[in-house]
């Protein structure tokens, strides 16, 4: 993996970006938490390997590839590109060889015409290279992206997406949908074309060199025009200007005498021409192919390659930042503890029952005792309290006792009330409860203690009031509070408690 990463240190390639899109597409259906976990693990592994931040995106991709089963878009693209490179490379090579071989046909009667060779084997290649270079310069001057109309081409070639492999179908959809893969593929296509051109030039040159080495060739020139050898020499000198600095003994440019000696006049035949002059042309033709066909094509191929790499390097995939962020951001988690089953609070009523004794002593006239939370003393008018007890038990409160609803408070209160002469012989305790307070165990135990009859008749009445509002401290309780208290009190059975709601 390290080797691959080092290869990628100059930036990700088109295939890498396609794979990146492929994995992002797969992530769309995953849970974000799952993605976070995975990417953070990759990030921690990258940190452990002291990987520089700029390589982390590539590292992520490699790890995803390692964990991926099945084909990847980059592999589909790579297969197609290899096939195309072979096609263009061998095609160009064969075309170059066959072109030159056709031009070099010589049976000893008529020498190979240098002008025809230049016109058919050198000038077209040089012209096409010049055109391609011109287009690149124009593009550079206009500062616009190079565009190859790939959409219609792809639409035409891959008309039936359903028949493609998922990876190839994805590449097709991506190229048709997004701009950047199409642009990169445009450069890739240009590189392919230049590869074909380069192979064509190379094939031409190789065919010429091999033909010279293994066959006996004679080159000459002819013209109906009266330009003479001097004119031809001027032209040859101009063409050979790029290599004119090379040593003359190498014979890379025919001399004036050699040009004169290789002029073919049909009516005279070739018998009168010197053999040395007839073979003096081939180094010149080789240099022409090298300088005007092979080298420009090589430069164009290298520039297309460079432009593709530049496009890949300059392209910033919008999601790469997100990925690196996920790799670098510490993973925040919280344990998903299971729910705790609800269960009624243990009251221990039986343990508390019967522990208290109270004696009622005769004291005439008290219908009921109202137990009031200490915090409400002085906050509710007496007439309201009186009306309340009348409503729930038919008597006005003989005493209003502030007491908190806990065991100590109730014990103290019962002691204080001992000896009261209850009207009708029944003890009636009305307990005002702020129902918005939850019934805690202490309250319920206190009620249990309060409700113990010890053989005497005792009524226990709870009046539930709601949250104070606008200075009113005896509001009606809400349904939820009432239900909670009813349920809690029901668990005090067999203790009988009547429950009412307060309302002013």
């Amino acid at each position, binding site marked *: 993996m390290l080797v691959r990463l080092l290869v990628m240190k100059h930036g990700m390639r088109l295939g890498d970006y396609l794979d990146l899109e492929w994995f992002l597409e797969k992530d769309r259906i995953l849970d*974000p938490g799952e993605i976070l976990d995975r990417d953070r693990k990759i990030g921690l592994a990258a940190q452990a390997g002291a990987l520089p931040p700029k390589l982390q995106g590539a590292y992520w991709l490699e790890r995803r590839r390692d964990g991926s089963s099945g084909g990847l878009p980059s592999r589909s693209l790579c297969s197609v590109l290899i096939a195309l490179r072979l096609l263009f490379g061998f095609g160009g090579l064969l075309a170059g060889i066959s072109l030159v071989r056709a031009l070099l046909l010589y049976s000893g009667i008529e020498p190979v015409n240098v002008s025809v060779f230049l016109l058919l084997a050198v000038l077209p290649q040089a012209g096409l290279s010049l055109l391609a270079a011109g287009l690149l310069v124009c593009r550079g001057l206009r500062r616009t*992206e190079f565009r190859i109309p790939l959409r219609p081409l792809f639409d035409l070639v891959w008309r039936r997406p359903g028949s493609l492999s998922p990876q190839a179908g994805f590449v097709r959809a991506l190229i048709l949908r997004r701009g950047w893969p199409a*642009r990169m593929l445009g450069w890739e296509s240009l590189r392919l074309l230049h590869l074909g051109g380069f192979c064509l030039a190379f094939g031409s040159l190789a065919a010429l060199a091999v033909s010279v080495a293994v066959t006996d060739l004679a080159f000459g020139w002819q013209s109906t025009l009266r330009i003479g050898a001097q004119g031809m020499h001027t032209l040859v000198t101009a063409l050979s200007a790029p290599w004119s600095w090379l040593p003359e003994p190498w014979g890379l440019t025919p001399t004036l005498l050699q040009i004169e000696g290789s002029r073919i006049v049909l009516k005279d035949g070739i018998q009168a021409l010197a053999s040395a002059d007839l073979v003096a042309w081939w180094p010149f033709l080789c240099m022409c192919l090298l300088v005007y066909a092979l080298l420009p094509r090589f430069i164009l191929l290298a520039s297309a390659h460079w432009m593709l790499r530049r496009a890949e390097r300059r392209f910033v995939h919008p999601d790469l930042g997100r990925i690196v962020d996920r790799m670098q951001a510490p993973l925040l988690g919280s344990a998903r503890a299971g729910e705790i089953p609800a269960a009624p609070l243990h009251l221990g009523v039986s343990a508390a029952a019967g522990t208290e004794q109270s004696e009622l002593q005769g004291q005439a006239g008290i219908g009921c005792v109202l137990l009031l939370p200490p915090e409400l003393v002085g906050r509710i008018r007496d007439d309201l309290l009186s009306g309340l007890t009348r409503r729930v038990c038919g008597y006005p409160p003989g005493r209003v006792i502030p007491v908190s609803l806990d065991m100590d408070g109730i014990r103290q209160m019962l002691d204080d009330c001992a000896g009261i002469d209850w009207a009708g012989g029944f003890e009636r305790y009305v307990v005002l409860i702020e129902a918005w307070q939850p019934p805690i165990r202490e309250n319920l135990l206190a009620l249990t203690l309060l409700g113990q009859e010890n053989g005497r008749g005792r009524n226990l009445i709870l009046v539930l009031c709601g949250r104070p509002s606008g200075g009113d401290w005896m509001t009606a309780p809400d349904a939820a509070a009432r239900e909670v208290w009813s349920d809690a009190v029901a668990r005090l059975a067999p203790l009988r408690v009547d429950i009412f709601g307060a309302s002013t």
Partner: protein
Amino acid sequence: MNSMPVFAVIGHPNEGKSSVVATLVENDRIRISPRPGETMESMTYPVSIDGKDVIAFVDTPGFQNPVQTLGWMRKFRGSESEVFEAFLAEFRDDPGMAHECELLTPVRDGAGIIYVLDASRPLRQVDKAEMEILRLTGRPRMAILNCKTGEEQFLEEWKTELRRHFNMVRTFNALRATFAERMRLLESLRALEQDWEDALGLVVDVFARDWRRRNAECAALVCDFLRRVLGMAETAHLADPGRKAEVEARLVSRLEERIRQEEETLHEQVCLQFRHDRRSFVLPEQSVLRQDLFSRTTWTVLGLSKGKLVAAAVAAGGAAGVALDLATLGSSLGLFAAVGGATAGLAALFQGERLVRGKVLGLGIGQRSVQVGPLDTVQWVFVLLDRFLLHYWYVIHWSHAWRGEDFLPALVDEGGKQGFTSTWSREARGLCAEFFKVATAGDDSRAMELEADLRRFLEEELERMSRL
């Protein structure tokens, strides 16, 4: 002192302890019930960073016998440091004191205390007993005033009492807490105990970073969604030209359904980013998001007003024209920008509110095929963005402690429009309009540049909304 900060969340029954824990640790699964006494055992909810627990919150049962407990402690004759150990030893097997034992155990083990109370009710004796018990622990402690019903008439009374017993008092509504409020609460905990400063500082930093990451993810998700939706089209072979209307209607229906599904996926992804179970997340009854994307109500309430829509379209059209003007090296004297702006503005004026149903592109190619889409009215991008932002707003305000009640956060309301986009700057609206233009026209390279800008803008916008 524990190296890892542990906070026991303690209080009276039904005061919102579990809600506070659920909100702080972003856990939808914590049992929260309006019925008191549902929490029977202490449950620890750790917060981990890269799998390593860094802090923990312990959700405890409520006090059931505060007066009795305080009474016992006051009668205890040993040293103050032994009182809790002695209490737990004494009542370990007493089922009636099970809750007290449960809630005091983590405190004995070194946990800090977060005392939660409902400040919308008056102070009572039992509360004072509870506070006194907690004061006796001598542990770092903070009180959280959780106004459950929103009434604050008792707030000052509570604060006065609490300051006598606690190192710090904060107001924090677990059901309404925004991200910023959560961060402030964690910052306060940091100041509670010096030994825990580093750990809590790390947690705060990671929380903040994680939130930014979520916003960046959401911005990327919505940009991806917009690109997908704005480029959508449906094409069908037309065998019988007489059935063109029927085919068109079928294509429109199919296109609408695809857009709805994309939006649903987007909303689900946003929910998941914020750790909300999509099934438990419920939109408010009154929300316009309950309306279909293609309904008139959606278009009436969301998007831009006509004037702003035209201005945005003019800005987008002008921007495209400026590029042409630049190409002529200024020789056109801004003519392209003017014409482009005017054309886009007029188009928005007359077509800006057209629904997809009104836009059926019947492109006859030799009378053999029909195409519907892509969307061609600029208002679309604002409606879609508004729906996303509205959903995001609900999601970040949807408390992990919330269980089923209706909740409608405040929204902007500007001239009948309730979307967020209408409050954006002219430049931001122009950016959206231009993005719409290039995305629907298939200018991918320009769309990509604009998408990067749009993402950055949306990230900032989401960050801003988080802090409202």
